């Protein structure tokens, strides 16, 4: 076990144990301790923050803290964050972060406040830190420091049209090979429908491709070097790009979640690998509610190694009021708020919330929601947060993966050329300190 992995395990266990002991001691928790302060929250304008901020007034009433929300689209939020953090400014107290993408980088740059210490010293009795997904807490722990608290859990799953599969005599696919076989049959059976769609846009590919790579049995790195040209890596690249080239929509190289959701929602796609988070968008208008089936990402030769990630709430290392900021973080990631967010379609990162009677009632209203929850259970129990290379330059590594996939979709390179070119660039990234 590496030093980092050991430190992570120790930290996660310590956090969990700490939670049990703190719960009792924090019975008379003073929510008004920072009354009159203003906390600035840099938010990504996505469904997760939208659901959370519905209850902004409740937080302000409970704590007497004024919450100033600075909201942007994802890329613009990062742009602002980089500017603020490079200037070591205290303008932002709390920010949203994707540990799977930028965790290594931000942690190494010292931008995250250490929440493991805060969560031990200042936690409400009902916070239940140990109730949060251990996989997500682990993914947010770097060198023994807990850097963010999970807000949701998500990962790529399979959406499929039950009516089209039935018409074409295809069983819902359980393996990647069955997905390809099903796509072939659908293509022959109904030429008006796109048999399969997944992400093809360069920076977006890694999200769905990583799941395929892991399920097939591949890994991004071996012996400190890029491993994309290994037999399993090549198989994953070949399978993913072949599926999109032979069965995907024209122009799939520009497809990310927005285009995929629109294509599926309008009834033009039979199967799709897309984020569990897109359920609400895919089902918008209600047309797909009755003819959609959901399943975990189909298995490969290595079985199911689902990708499970989640947005996290981090306290800035440069905040002048980390304690007040932590109050907002713990309120936002508390069981009560996560239960309320769950019935708005934000998958809870707490297994206990998933069993809550009110949430179960919401789930049981639609068979699609039941299948969605079943797929999420698989993510929560077996998920890996490795999307792209586990290095500080993770965002840049995703570009090389996306480039290799696009080169193959567009037939601009052979498989050997595409993976060799990617490995060359990735090895240089890995070598960077």
């Amino acid at each position, binding site marked *: 076990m590496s030093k980092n992995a050991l430190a992570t395990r120790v930290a996660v266990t310590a956090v969990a144990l700490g939670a049990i002991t703190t719960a009792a001691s924090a019975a008379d928790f003073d929510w008004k301790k920072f009354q009159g302060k203003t906390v600035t929250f840099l938010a990504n304008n996505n469904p997760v923050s939208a659901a959370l901020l519905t209850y902004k007034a409740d937080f302000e009433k409970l704590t007497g803290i004024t919450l100033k929300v600075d909201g942007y689209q994802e*890329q613009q939020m*990062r*742009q602002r964050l*980089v500017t603020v*953090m*490079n200037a070591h400014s205290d303008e932002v107290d709390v920010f949203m972060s994707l540990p799977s993408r930028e965790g290594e*980088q931000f942690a*190494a*740059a*010292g*931008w995250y406040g250490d929440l493991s210490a805060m969560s031990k010293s200042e936690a409400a009795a009902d916070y239940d830190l140990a109730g949060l997904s251990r996989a997500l807490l682990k993914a947010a722990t770097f060198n023994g420091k807990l850097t963010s608290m999970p807000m949701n859990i998500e990962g790529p799953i399979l959406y499929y049209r039950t009516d089209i599969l039935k018409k074409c005599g295809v069983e819902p696919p359980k393996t990647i090979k069955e997905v390809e076989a099903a796509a072939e049959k659908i293509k022959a059976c109904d030429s008006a429908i*796109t048999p399969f769609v997944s992400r093809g*846009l*360069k*920076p977006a590919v890694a999200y769905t491709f990583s799941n395929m790579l892991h399920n097939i049995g591949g890994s991004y790195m071996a012996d400190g070097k890029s491993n994309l040209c290994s037999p399993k890596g090549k198989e994953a690249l070949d399978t993913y790009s072949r599926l999109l080239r032979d069965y995907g*929509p*024209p*122009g*799939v*190289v*520009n497809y990310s979640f927005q*285009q995929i959701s*629109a*294509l599926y929602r*309008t009834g*033009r796609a039979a199967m799709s690998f897309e984020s569990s988070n897109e359920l609400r968008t895919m089902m918008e208008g209600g047309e797909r509610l009755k003819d959609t089936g959901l399943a975990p990402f189909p298995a490969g030769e290595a079985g199911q190694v689902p990708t499970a990630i989640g947005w996290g709430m981090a306290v800035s290392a440069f905040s002048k009021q980390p304690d007040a900021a932590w109050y907002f973080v713990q309120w936002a990631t508390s069981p009560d708020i996560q239960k309320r967010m769950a019935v708005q379609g934000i998958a809870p990162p707490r297994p206990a919330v998933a069993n809550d009677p009110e949430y179960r009632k919401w789930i049981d209203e639609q068979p699609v929601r039941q299948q969605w929850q079943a797929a999420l259970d698989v993510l929560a129990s077996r998920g890996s947060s490795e999307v792209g290379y586990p290095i*500080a*330059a993770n*965002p*840049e590594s995703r*570009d090389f993966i996306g*480039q290799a996939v*696009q*080169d193959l979709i*567009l037939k*601009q390179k052979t498989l050997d050329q595409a993976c060799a070119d990617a490995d060359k660039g990735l090895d240089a990234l890995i070598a*960077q*300190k």
Partner: protein
Amino acid sequence: MTYAAYAVTPDRQRAELATLSAPAVLFTLAMIAFPVVYTVWLGFHTFSSTGRQSFSGVGNYSRLVADHEFWHGLWVTLALYVLSLALQLVLGIWLALLLFHAKRLPGIVRSLFISPFMMPPVVAGLMWLVILDPSIGAANYLLTRVGLPPSDWLASPLWVIPTIAMIDTWQWAPYVALIVLGGLQSLPPSVYEAAQIDGASPLTTFRRITLPLLLPTIVTATILRSVDLLRFFDIIYITTQGGPGNASNTLNIYGFRVGFEFFNIGYASALMLTLTAIVFGVVLAFNRLRGAVAW
């Protein structure tokens, strides 16, 4: 006390004017100079992906010379610039002539002709993204209706640059038309009367009189569009983010991604300063041309 005692000498007047305007001048200089100086400073530093910063001298510029992606970005930037500018000038002049001669055109129609450039680029980008979607877009529907094969438009490495040039031309040719229309309206009527008396054909009049007299206006429009086109960003970012692959990865898109997605602010600053130098060079060249064609 005599009037002379109150008289303000030219020197004193200058000093007072300088004192009164100094805060505004200093503020403006600071607003312009600080970001430029800061960017130059950043360009001499290296920021690792973990945010560590170190002085690297001209290291970023040496890296730039050896960076294949930089040269590719430069090529894409120039290809898009030349194609878009040519299309916008030709269509803009044609549209201006149309509006100039169609005196009876109702005001609302004139406004509609020139409305695209008033549309926010984000809206224009999203609108064209939907129209040009190879699966569900109206463009391919129309092509197939008239018996032509569908195109991948923004998803084709071959067609992405002409497609982006077409979108930008749709949006900005009316702007060129508006500038040229202003130029047309200021041309002296006496020259045209003389040409008419001499029996010049409309084509000859256009070639020998209108076009030469319009050249200063056209060069002005060229300068304005050059500045925008060389640092073209919004529509590309919305529609392709530099893809497919790196087929539409202009210098501006590349610099943005290096700086704000890969967090290497130093190298991004070097890229952006190089782009700024290119823009300055082009503007200076056209400024000289404007002097040469002035009448």
